[in-house]
């Protein structure tokens, strides 16, 4: 069946592993992935816990699509309370781990407590072992994965690097070297539990009724609806194609968001990536293969993705592709989230150039730039300060007005002054500044909707947040621009019950409200849905966005409208009526 109906629960404090049925009531209301992992965390975590304590839980959650032939269904949700923000945190990681976990016989793994010494988990079907990881501790994620593959054979691994071991708020989890559950310090949650890696091998399968007919239907959908012009940009270019779009619309973050265009953008755009492309790579069950396997000089990686090109490239004043690729590799190996790392380095560069504090690094300084990932991940030299992330650096050194973060999470690669709905998306995303909860830049800066008005933006962002929550719960990758109707059609076939587009929209709304409720319980409200002061008070001066800002009153207007449409009060708290309507 689409659900295995089994959850593996591992308590690292006492080493006990148990399995239990999946909560089917919750699965009906939240599907899986993002939604279901948030539900488990909401029910099981006490309010106010320290995210880096044994009280936090790390959940690996698949969805009903996982392991099937449905296109773009290879992702895994990983969730916990965020060490970076204190909010709910769910990340999405591609590759092949999610289906492997399901083939091993589990919908989800819930990891509790804290091991007394470094360990890794080896899961093969019903065999679950906690093994000593003393020899892996201190190693990068790449070496860790290689060693575990050599030791265990054909396995898929989630691993942390030095950043996770050292509990950085920007530490990510890595798989297959170049896939990341990137944001909010999810890698530090693993590190805090002394958990270096999780390797899985699954020898079972997923059985569904009438599998041949289902496969034939899905093959038609794959050909006619997935592999279309709307989605094949992923194969032809991948995310680097966004560099030119952002440059031409003036939203390419440059020198810590001081500008929205970068003179050297041609050195870091899709053409530049294609010039060193060796092969295309896909996640499990994905025909779109967005990933670019590149080689330049001695360095090979899958990447760099747009976010890395923007935040670690133009935003650091770096127009040197070879340096960018090496920086990307260092971040991947040490397990630093490139969005947060790029922002943090750029912030240190601006603080240095403005004479506020000398970190010994300036925009475009390739030599020192390449030292940063290792120094940050190991908290050495200036890295000890940069490891704090932008928000805490600003609290310590100043520069609060140009600290580019929301709720403590650094901002992705779309300048909100040239895409106002993007600003609202950052302000209201459940885990802090995030471009995946909603990506209105696609229809605003890159589309036909006026980017410089508040009108209609709240409705736009809400619609996107709700549909993306469904996608990340089923789990579909967001690179298939699938309609809610088609999601309903496929889920109806798979789950053998009628699922309507309207029901999915309600599920999406419910997920966003539950995430908000989790954050509300932690003390978050309107005061936390801010944008950096720079966005309101400084006008951009170049390109399409020259003369543009996002005035505070316009932002506040969008935010109030957003709360109103969500059925929340003026302070951003969920009303009793809304809770009742959504069965929260």
């Amino acid at each position: 069946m689409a659900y295995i109906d089994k959850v593996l629960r591992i308590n690292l404090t006492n080493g006990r592993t148990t399995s239990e049925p999946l909560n089917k009531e919750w699965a009906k209301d939240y599907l899986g992935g993002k939604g279901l992992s948030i539900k488990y965390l909401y029910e099981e975590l006490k309010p106010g816990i320290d995210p880096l304590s044994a009280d936090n839980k790390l959940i690996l959650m698949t969805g009903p699509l996982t392991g099937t032939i449905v296109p773009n269904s290879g992702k895994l949700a990983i969730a916990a309370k965020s060490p970076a923000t204190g909010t709910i945190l769910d990340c999405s990681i591609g590759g092949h781990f999610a289906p492997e976990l399901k083939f091993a016989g589990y919908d989800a793994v819930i990891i509790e407590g804290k091991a007394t010494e470094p360990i890794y988990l080896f899961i093969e079907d019903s065999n679950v072992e906690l093994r000593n990881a003393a020899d892996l501790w201190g190693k990068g994620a790449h070496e860790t994965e290689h060693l575990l593959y050599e030791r265990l054979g054909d396995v898929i691994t989630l691993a942390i690097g030095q950043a996770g071991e050292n509990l950085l708020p920007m530490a990510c989890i890595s798989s297959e070297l170049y896939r990341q559950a990137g944001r909010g310090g999810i890698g530090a949650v693993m590190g805090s539990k002394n958990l270096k890696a999780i390797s899985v091998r699954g020898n079972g399968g997923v059985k569904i009724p009438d599998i041949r007919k289902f496969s034939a239907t899905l093959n038609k959908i794959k050909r006619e609806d997935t592999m279309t012009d709307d989605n094949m940009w992923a194969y032809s270019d991948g995310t680097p194609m966004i560099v030119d779009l952002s440059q031409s619309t003036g939203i390419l973050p440059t020198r810590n968001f001081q500008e929205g265009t970068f003179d050297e953008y041609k050195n870091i755009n899709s053409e530049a990536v294609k010039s060193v492309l060796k092969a295309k790579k896909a996640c499990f069950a994905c025909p779109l293969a967005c990933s670019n396997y590149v080689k330049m000089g001695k360095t090979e990686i899958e990447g760099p993705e747009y976010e890395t090109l923007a935040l670690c490239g133009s935003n650091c004043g770096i127009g040197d592709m070879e340096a960018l690729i090496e920086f990307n590799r260092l971040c991947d190996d040490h397990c630093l989230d490139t969005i947060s790392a790029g922002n943090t380095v750029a912030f240190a560069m601006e603080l240095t150039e403005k004479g506020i504090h000398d970190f010994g690094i300036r925009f475009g300084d390739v030599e020192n730039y390449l030292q940063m990932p290792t120094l940050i991940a190991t908290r050495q030299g200036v890295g000890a300060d940069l490891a704090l992330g932008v928000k805490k650096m600003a609290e310590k050194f100043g520069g609060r007005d140009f600290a580019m973060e929301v709720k403590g999470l650094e901002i992705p690669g779309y300048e909100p002054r040239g895409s106002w709905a993007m600003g609202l998306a950052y302000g209201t995303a459940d885990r802090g500044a995030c471009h995946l909860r909603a990506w209105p830049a696609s229809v605003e800066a890159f589309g036909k909707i006026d980017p410089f008005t508040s009108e209609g933006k709240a409705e736009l962002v809400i619609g996107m947040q709700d549909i993306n929550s469904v996608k990340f719960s089923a789990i579909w990758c967001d690179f298939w621009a699938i309609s809610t109707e088609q999601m309903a059609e496929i889920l109806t076939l798979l789950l053998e019950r009628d699922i309507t587009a309207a029901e999915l929209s309600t599920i999406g709304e419910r997920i966003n409200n539950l995430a908000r409720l989790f954050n509300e319980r932690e003390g978050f409200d309107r005061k936390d849905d801010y944008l950096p002061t720079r966005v309101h008070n400084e006008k951009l001066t170049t390109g399409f966005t020259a003369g543009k800002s996002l005035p505070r009153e316009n932002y506040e207007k969008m935010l109030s409208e957003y709360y109103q449409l969500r059925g929340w009060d003026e302070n951003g708290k969920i009303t009793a009526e809304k809770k009742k309507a959504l069965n929260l």
Partner: protein
Amino acid sequence: MKALAFHAEKCIGCKLCHLACSAQNEGEFNPRLARLKITSIHKRDGLLVRGQTCDLCLTCVEVCPEDAIVEKNGRLNFLPELCTDCGICVDTCPPQVIVDKPEGVGVCVQCRSCANWCPTAALTFEEVNK
């Protein structure tokens, strides 16, 4: 004779071929039951892409002591009633794509489900030099 062929330079490592094969021939989505093996992983010395498919070399037909695998009209045919589970075919298959099951074996029947699903034409059905 026509048979499956693999073109490594086009493979993206999505495993849709494994799923299509196991769904068609085993009734479940289980990559380890697929009658082909496509590998696309990052090793220490870089990306390794390798394809193992049945090219109708007919070694299995030759080695089976019970004639439980026969070739007919360019397709392998497995006759379970004759199989004694000796495992010789599994061990000697040059591309190592015969699935060893609790009872009997799974041989590629050139159904082309894998090639029909392959999004990049890395798997094709074409003339092989046999």
